[in-house]
C-alpha cells in the first residue's frame, strides 16, 4: 500500500504536467472565428502533418504580411490572425474566404497534390 500511494501521486503529477502539452494542441482544422455564420464545416487542415508531407519549412507564403514590389509575399508573424488583415466582408484587398481558398487551392493545383474540390476540405 505504501508503495502504491507515491506511484499514484507520480502518475497524477505526470498527468498534471502533461495538460499544458494538450493545451498546445495541433491545428487540425481551419476554424476561423471571423466566420460567424459558416455555410460549410471548417476545412480539415493538420498543420504539422501537412507541412511534413509537403516538405514545407518556410512560414511564407501562408503566414505573410503584404507583398513586396515584385508581388512576392513578405514573411509574416504566425501569431497574427488571417482575419487581422483579410476582412470577411469585401473591402480593400482579398476577402478572407477568397484568401483561404486561393492560398490552398492555387498551391495544390500547382503542385498537383492536395485537395482542390469543395468537399475534399469541407468534409461533412
Amino acid at each position, binding site marked *: 500500500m505504501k508503495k502504491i500511494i507515491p506511484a499514484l501521486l507520480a502518475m497524477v503529477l505526470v498527468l498534471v504536467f502533461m495538460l499544458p502539452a494538450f493545451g498546445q494542441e495541433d491545428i487540425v482544422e481551419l476554424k476561423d472565428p471571423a466566420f460567424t455564420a459558416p455555410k460549410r464545416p471548417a476545412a480539415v487542415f493538420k498543420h504539422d502533418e501537412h507541412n511534413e508531407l509537403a516538405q514545407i519549412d518556410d512560414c511564407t507564403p501562408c503566414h505573410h504580411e503584404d507583398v513586396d514590389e515584385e508581388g512576392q509575399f513578405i514573411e509574416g508573424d504566425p501569431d497574427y490572425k488571417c482575419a487581422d488583415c483579410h476582412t470577411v466582408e*469585401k473591402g480593400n484587398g482579398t476577402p478572407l474566404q*477568397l484568401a483561404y*481558398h486561393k492560398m490552398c487551392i492555387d498551391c495544390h493545383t500547382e503542385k*498537383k497534390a492536395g485537395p*482542390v*474540390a*469543395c*468537399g*475534399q476540405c469541407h468534409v*461533412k
Partner: protein
Amino acid sequence: MFNEIYELVTGPLAWIGWGIFLLGSVYKLASLWSLAKKKDTSSIYYTKAKFGLRSIAQWSLPFGTLGWRETPSVTVVTFVFHICLILVPIFLSAHVILWEEWFGVSIPALPNHVADVMTLLVIAGGTFFAWRRFSVPEVAFVTSGHDWFVLGVVVAPFLTGFLAYHQIFNYEVMIVLHVITGIAWLALIPFTRLSHMLVSWYSRAYIGSEFQGVRHCKDW
C-alpha cells in the same frame, strides 16, 4: 491522379463544353433561320413581335392559358422544374464561389437549404416526367429513346450534385461525375430536344402571330 482528372474536367473539358454550347447554339439558330428563309418565308413574314411577345407572356404565366389549365399537375411541375433547373446552377453557393474565384464575378447566392430543396424538386420533376412517359398512354406513344436520354442528361448533374454536396458515396468520383454530366448537359442543348431552350421562343411567337394576326383569335 484526382488532381489531374479534376483539372482536366474543370479546365479544358469545361471550355470545350461551353464552346460547343455557345457555337452550337449559334449554328442551330442560324441553320434553322436559313431553312425557314428557304422553305417557309410566309411564317417569317407573318411573325410579328407584338403578337409573339403577347403569346410568350401569356404562356409564361402558370394557368395563364387553356393549355396550362387542362392538366394542372403538368403545369405545376413544368414551372417548378424549369425555374429550379435554371436558378440552382447559377446561384448555388458553391457555384457562386467559383464564379468569383474563376471569373471575378460576384453574384448573390441561394441559402444552402433552399438550393437543396430546389435540387430535390428538379429530381422529383424529372421522376414525374419519367412516370408520365411510362404511364400516360398519349405520352408513352410519342416517347422514344431520345426522350429518355435527354431526361437522363438533364437530371444527372442535379443527382450527382446532390450526392456530392451531401458527400454520399465516394466524393471524388461524384464531383467528377457532376462536372462531366453538367458539361454534357450544356453541350447537348443545341443538338437534342433540349434545343427548345433556344427555339421554343420563336415557335411560340410564330403560333401567337398566326392566331392573333391571321385568324384574329387568342392562342392561349
